[in-house]
């Protein structure tokens, strides 16, 4: 597949789209920036920054319980943002809790679900490819509730061992918490099967969709998933905002997480009555600008077309895979059949940091290190990887620059 061929298959006018992202036109170390660290955080279209600016400059106000005009406007915008983000995954607004991000969402669930449903000896299932944010909250939960954390192993390609998973499910299992897409390996997990197998035993499933919502159109009803967590900042939105989706029937059963303003019906020193979901789980002044910005990001994506985004990313993925695989001495970590546009690699016995630095000198931003998946690094017996994670606004030429950059780095590192 040549670059020209590849470009023909891309259904988006990338040059035009890139105008929406001012940062893509900056330079790093004297070279035009190639931003391949989208797995860590995506860049923001002007639609997002402008929505935030408009909010602050024209209708900033605290939400809920205010009768004055600005407060009404801000409340309506905040609640409409909830509706927009919920609609994006085909959920009802009542089923969408705004959180600080994926990590906050998983902690919220681990605490409240743990408190309500997890008893001594119970089991929670995660996988070997989880991000620390989907490991540590469950470790803390299991420690607290004297429960057991079970880990689904993966094969050499970085795919879940579904047979092992099936065997792990038992009457002791109270929750399955697994990532939809691996942030390190790029693996897209068979979530439908994961959910079906768990539901066959009436076990609820939480998906860590931090690396999924920006690449795959998700319909929570069709998936029949019970809980799902994701971050705004990886979805072309602001930092400090994210969401936890939960089926109404589940959310109703969960006790509050944080206490404070907005999450209560009535407070007295003797007895406090909590509000219904989702407000029950949103204590304190929410990240109003964050929610508005997140909704603006979601609307921007819908405007471009989720199908076109998916096609573009598939083409880029194939091209990158082909190009990277052709580099002698480069080892891809994660070669799953079903994958997203995320490529972890190591070069000979080079340290990923060196590779990252030499690419940075050429204006190419990749992440290096363990990507918050230390257990996975231990499994592959490597200290870390360099990771190029792509977005629909990346171009085939940028992939060529990466390949050239890697060659140059290899030469310097004598690999």
């Amino acid at each position: 597949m040549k670059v020209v061929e590849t470009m023909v298959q891309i259904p988006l006018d990338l040059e035009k789209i890139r105008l929406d992202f001012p940062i893509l036109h900056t330079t790093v170390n004297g070279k035009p920036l190639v931003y391949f660290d989208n797995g860590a955080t995506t860049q923001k279209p002007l639609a997002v920054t402008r929505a935030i600016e408009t909010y602050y400059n024209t209708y900033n106000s605290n939400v809920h319980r205010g009768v004055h005009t600005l407060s009404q406007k801000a409340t309506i915008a905040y609640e409409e943002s909830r509706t927009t983000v919920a609609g994006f995954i085909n959920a009802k607004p009542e089923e969408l809790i705004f959180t600080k991000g994926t990590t906050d969402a998983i902690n919220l669930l681990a605490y409240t679900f743990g408190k309500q449903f997890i008893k001594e000896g119970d089991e929670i299932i995660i996988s070997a490819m989880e991000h620390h944010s989907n490991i540590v909250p469950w470790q803390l939960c299991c420690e607290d509730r004297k429960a057991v954390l079970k880990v689904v192993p993966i094969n050499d390609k970085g795919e879940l061992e579904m047979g092992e998973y099936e065997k792990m499910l038992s009457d002791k299992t109270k929750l399955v918490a697994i990532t939809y897409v691996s942030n390190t390996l790029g693996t897209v997990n068979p979530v439908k099967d994961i959910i079906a197998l768990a539901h066959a035993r009436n076990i609820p499933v939480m998906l860590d969709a931090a690396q999924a919502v920006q690449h795959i159109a998700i319909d929570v009803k069709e998936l029949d998933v019970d809980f799902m967590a994701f971050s705004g900042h990886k979805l072309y939105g602001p930092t400090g905002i994210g969401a936890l989706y939960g089926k109404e029937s589940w959310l109703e059963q969960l006790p509050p997480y944080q206490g404070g303003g907005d999450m209560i019906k009535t407070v007295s020193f003797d007895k406090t009555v909590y509000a219904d979901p989702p407000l029950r789980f949103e204590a304190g002044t929410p990240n109003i600008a964050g929610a508005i910005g997140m909704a603006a990001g979601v609307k921007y994506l819908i405007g471009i077309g989720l199908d076109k985004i998916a096609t573009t990313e598939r083409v880029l993925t194939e091209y990158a895979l082909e190009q990277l695989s052709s580099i002698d001495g480069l080892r891809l970590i994660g070669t799953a059949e079903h994958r997203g546009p995320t490529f972890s690699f190591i070069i000979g016995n080079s340290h990923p940091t060196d590779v990252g630095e030499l690419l940075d000198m050429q204006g190419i931003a990749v992440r290096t290190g363990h990507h918050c998946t230390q257990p996975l690094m231990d499994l592959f017996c490597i200290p870390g990887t360099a990771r190029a994670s792509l977005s629909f606004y990346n171009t085939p030429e940028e992939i060529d620059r990466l390949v050239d950059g890697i060659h140059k780095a290899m030469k310097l590192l004598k690999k």
Partner: protein
Amino acid sequence: MTIKESQDRIIEDFAAFEEWTDKYEYIIQSGEDLPPMDPQYKTDDNLIRGCQSRVWLHADFKDGLLHFTADSDAQITKGLVSLVTTVLSGQSPADIADAELFFIDAIGLRSHLSPTRANGLLAMLKQIKMYALGYKVQQAQKN
């Protein structure tokens, strides 16, 4: 008067006002004109709790028609409650169930129907519709 007619009349009244103060005077006066609610009906069951103000609503069904008595602890809400009950009281369950309440929007107080306002008015309207639907179904079964 039909539900539509009494709404039109209110809208007409409001059309004459030049100042926002006239509008509010009218609304507040309507609240004061509301016949006092029998204390026996001011029960928790009849209480519709908004986040800020409270509304009590009681429905009576007589001779095939629904009659509402209501109250609120906030004057403006009470005024709006009064207008709503004036429009809907004495109508048949079927008519109430089918009615479209356009006057609140037309007189520029739509914001009072916003779920974010939580003054009890929206909840009261829902409650009225529920009563009406309930009696409508009941009557249909009898016939």
